[in-house]
């Protein structure tokens, strides 16, 4: 699809946009202002932390580009979809960090849609400038794919809710200020009806965050224990019992992230560079031919994913997007991300799988900057791509239900 198709349905289109000039402006700014140390971290596939993300968020916000997906009234760019897609392409191409999903991508739009004026004034500016950092408290030990079975309870007590329970797989909780979390406020009726969305400051007494060691060797997920944690009723987003509606709103947005495909394309470029270097250094061989075949298939598949995303965005804007398509996109992109990372793993695992973590890391950070070592981390981390944000099995059920109308 030509990107121009997205122009006609721009949300805030005021004056005609020169898209080539816009792309040039993005390139110039990102090249000049994204710190080289941060770009190096992205380029070498290292794990990003709050420090890098928030610095880039602050810089973008200074330029007025902190929230490409937000409307102008909340400090967003008001860009049309073509501009947003170009932003993501340029950002990925230049190894700038993606926008931090929990703040800008997830809870920001939920607060805009369901929050009170006070909540919008309190939370949105601090998401925009990167001063507040958010995490998502959804999953629990017994509530993963079946999120509506969550048991963490919140009981109203005067002007507060008192929360008890446990959240799990809470990414970035170790470095977040605030957790938007789903809690059970009623056991009556349908289980979805008794769920409420609360904002919980993680410095509140009664909260304990414990890391979950994962196979990739990175620290990104945690268990969060809540023991008689008091938060004001003013921290409730939407109505009591309206949490499921907020969650569905958010999950629908999660499946349609314009950032996904450009990042896949950049990963493919990196793998192609690696295979070309190997071809140059070692010459052609049956195994390299096999890897190139997989690369070509992934390249074509990524192109297909791009078209799928663009048409899905277009359909979303005019209200015709089917759940089957957004789920198909999530399914396709997560599996493609795994295919690409598996190919990269196969190319460098013989050397780096036995040497994933140096017992005494090099003082100058050289180990961390080795992109091939990080590709092994990435391969292991990307096993979660078909689990987090709705497993592939759940996506297939959504698609099948719609295709068969049952």
């Amino acid at each position, binding site marked *: 699809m030509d990107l121009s198709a997205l122009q006609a349905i721009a949300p805030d289109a005021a004056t005609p946009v020169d898209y080539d000039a816009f792309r040039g402006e993005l390139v110039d700014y990102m090249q000049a202002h994204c710190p080289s140390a941060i770009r190096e971290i992205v380029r070498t596939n290292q794990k990003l932390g709050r420090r890098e993300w928030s610095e880039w968020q602050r810089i973008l916000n200074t330029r007025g580009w902190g929230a490409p997906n937000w409307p102008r009234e909340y400090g967003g760019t008001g860009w049309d979809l073509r501009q947003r897609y170009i932003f993501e392409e340029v950002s990925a191409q230049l190894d700038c960090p993606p926008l931090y999903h929990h703040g800008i991508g997830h809870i920001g739009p939920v607060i805009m849609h369901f929050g009170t004026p006070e909540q919008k004034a309190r939370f949105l500016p601090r998401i925009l400038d990167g001063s507040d950092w958010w995490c998502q408290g959804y999953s629990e030990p017994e509530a993963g794919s079946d999120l509506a079975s969550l048991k963490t309870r919140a009981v109203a007590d005067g002007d507060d809710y008192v929360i008890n329970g446990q959240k799990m797989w809470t990414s970035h909780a170790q470095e977040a200020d605030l957790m938007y979390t789903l809690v059970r406020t009623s056991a009556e009726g349908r289980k979805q009806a008794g769920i409420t969305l609360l904002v919980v400051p993680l410095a509140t007494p009664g909260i304990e965050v414990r890391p979950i060691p994962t196979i990739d060797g990175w620290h990104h997920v945690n268990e969060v224990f809540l023991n008689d944690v008091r938060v004001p009723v003013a921290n409730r987003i939407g109505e009591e019992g309206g949490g499921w509606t907020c969650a569905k709103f958010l999950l629908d947005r999660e499946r349609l992230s314009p950032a996904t495909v450009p990042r896949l394309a950049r990963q493919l470029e990196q793998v192609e560079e690696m295979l070309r270097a190997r071809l140059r250094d070692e010459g052609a061989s049956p195994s390299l031919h096999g890897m190139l075949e997989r690369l070509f298939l992934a390249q074509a598949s990524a192109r297909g994913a791009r078209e799928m995303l663009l048409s899905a965005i277009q359909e979303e804007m005019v209200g015709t997007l089917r759940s089957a398509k957004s789920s198909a996109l999530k399914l396709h992109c997560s599996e493609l991300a795994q295919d690409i990372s598996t190919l990269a793993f196969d190319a460098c695992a013989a050397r780096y799988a036995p040497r*994933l973590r140096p017992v005494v890391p090099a003082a100058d950070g050289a180990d961390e900057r080795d992109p091939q070592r990080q590709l092994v981390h990435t391969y292991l981390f990307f096993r979660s791509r078909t*689990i987090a944000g709705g497993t592939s099995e759940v996506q297939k059920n959504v698609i099948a239900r719609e295709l068969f109308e049952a």
Partner: protein
Amino acid sequence: MRTIATPLFAGDLHHTALRLAQAQPSGASADATAAWRHMLELGWQGVLVDEESGGAGAELADFAAIVEALATRALSVPIIERCAVAPALLGACDGAVARALLERVARGDASVAPVLHTAPQHPAAQPPTVRGDRLSGTVAAVDWTVPATHVVFDALENTSDAPLLVLLDVAELSSHLRCYVGIDGRTSADIEVAELRVDAPQLLLRGAPAARAIARAQQLGSMLGCVATVGACGAMIEQTVEHLSTRVQFGSPLATFQALRHRVVDMYVAYESARGLVRDQVLAHAHAPDPRQVALTRFYVQGVGRSLADATIQLHGGMGMSQETLAARLAMHALMSALRYGDRSDCLEWLVSGVVEEVAAA
């Protein structure tokens, strides 16, 4: 836990190894040293060593029973390296040093970490070189998970490029180590040496006999790596069935969802196929090692191990990502077993080059 996997070679050794593995503390950070000491006490370094050298002179199948059982708990010990590959290398040498060391190995008084840089089916790294009585280069990825007394490895003779089998005492190496932790929790070390003096008795074997010993040791490690993969695969299926049977989502055990059941069935079919192949090849290998069959077996079993590792993680959901879950550690064990002694690329290269040579010669 339901028993689904059938041991490749059931018997006392399998049961003993299984009990030992099950008694070890679980978890990613569990220290393997105590388990390893127990294995030395049980004489496992001597299982494959001839009786005249103080070993048990057992069949390869007997030792495979141990390897498979340990793999079902993803135990991070260099059982194949220390108990099969190193004794095979030492056993191929005629000299007094090698013979004496092999006897100590069989008794558990010494433990030798082997490295094969130049094996035909797994050219792993540029080997160190020996010029006169001086050794220089890197001995790559020596397993350092549990204490070793010696390292035995292949090097190249600088003047002739002939392969050499070299023995070093670890006391000579401690200042040259760089250690890493791998995806399966095992530690390996790259050992850099520059102009290190090696005396004649340390050069255990040279030329064609050394090349043959290296190739055979690699094939032995390769076959036993397949055994470890099969052991991990069987355990992954059992763990997955248990998880799906007990984990309730949407009001029902996950095991009631047909799509998930079918994926486990796919795992099981692949496992049984790999298991049959590996069992047959272990029995055949003991009597008439066939390098092509070893490479073919490995090529196939590696694919099965990868696909079962992926499926196990996926079917465990988030728990499949946690190092604290046995299923996740089994997946890492299977992935790493598929890389030691040659990955799929190595097998493919070797198999294709063989066909090319045959066609050219026809």
